């Protein structure tokens, strides 16, 4: 496919469970971003990868959140010991270039994973 894909589209977890969310960026895109969108809010930045390097993780809300992109393509966002406040839509976006040229980068968004923690 030509766009960013994410899986699963919906995830229901019991409080305390671990979850893993996957993002397949557009092929060849260097930059990958994760955002969290709570109900009724705009997306909020979580973390940024340039290829396999995690250059910015300033938005990760706690050490329960972990992201990786080991081969510079697919990325996984893992949330350990989920809490109710983790319920949100998790968005992935990719862009063609890396930092230094990011000001000219359009970010293409995936459909998101809606996580509900019971």
């Amino acid at each position, binding site marked *: 496919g030509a*766009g*960013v894909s994410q899986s699963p589209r919906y995830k229901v977890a019991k409080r305390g469970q671990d979850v893993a969310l996957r993002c397949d960026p557009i092929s060849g895109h260097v*930059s990958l*971003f994760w*955002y969290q969108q709570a109900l*009724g*809010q*705009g*997306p*909020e*930045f979580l973390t*940024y990868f340039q290829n396999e390097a995690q250059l*910015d993780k300033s*938005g990760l809300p706690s050490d329960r959140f972990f992201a990786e992109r080991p081969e510079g393509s697919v990325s996984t966002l893992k949330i350990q010991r989920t809490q109710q406040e983790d319920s949100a839509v998790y*968005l992935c*976006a990719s*862009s063609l270039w890396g*930092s230094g040229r*990011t*000001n*000219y*980068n*359009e*970010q293409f*968004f*995936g*459909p*998101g994973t809606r996580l509900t923690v019971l």
Partner: protein
Amino acid sequence: AQSVSQHNHHVILSEAASLELGCNYSYGGTVNLFWYVQYPGQHLQLLLKYFSGDPLVKGIKGFEAEFIKSKFSFNLRKPSVQWSDTAEYFCAVNAWTGKLIFGQGTTLQVKP
């Protein structure tokens, strides 16, 4: 810290009415500005963007936005809305770090 403020949270218009959605940002340096749209059941899509040059930018579907640096504003406009414009609209700013800072969003409901 950078922030984006969207003043209108929920707007209801009739078809053919004119639209203006407000967006203000706080950041002292060079920024790039964006409007994204999210139609019901779809993912975020870029409407238009401003990087430099002409402060009046035109996007898809007849939308335009004007960057006013002195007012730190980037308001979205459309002369005549259609029912199909019903969606959520997000203003965003992108500084040198690459990440997007989004506003809270504006839900636009267009009545046929």
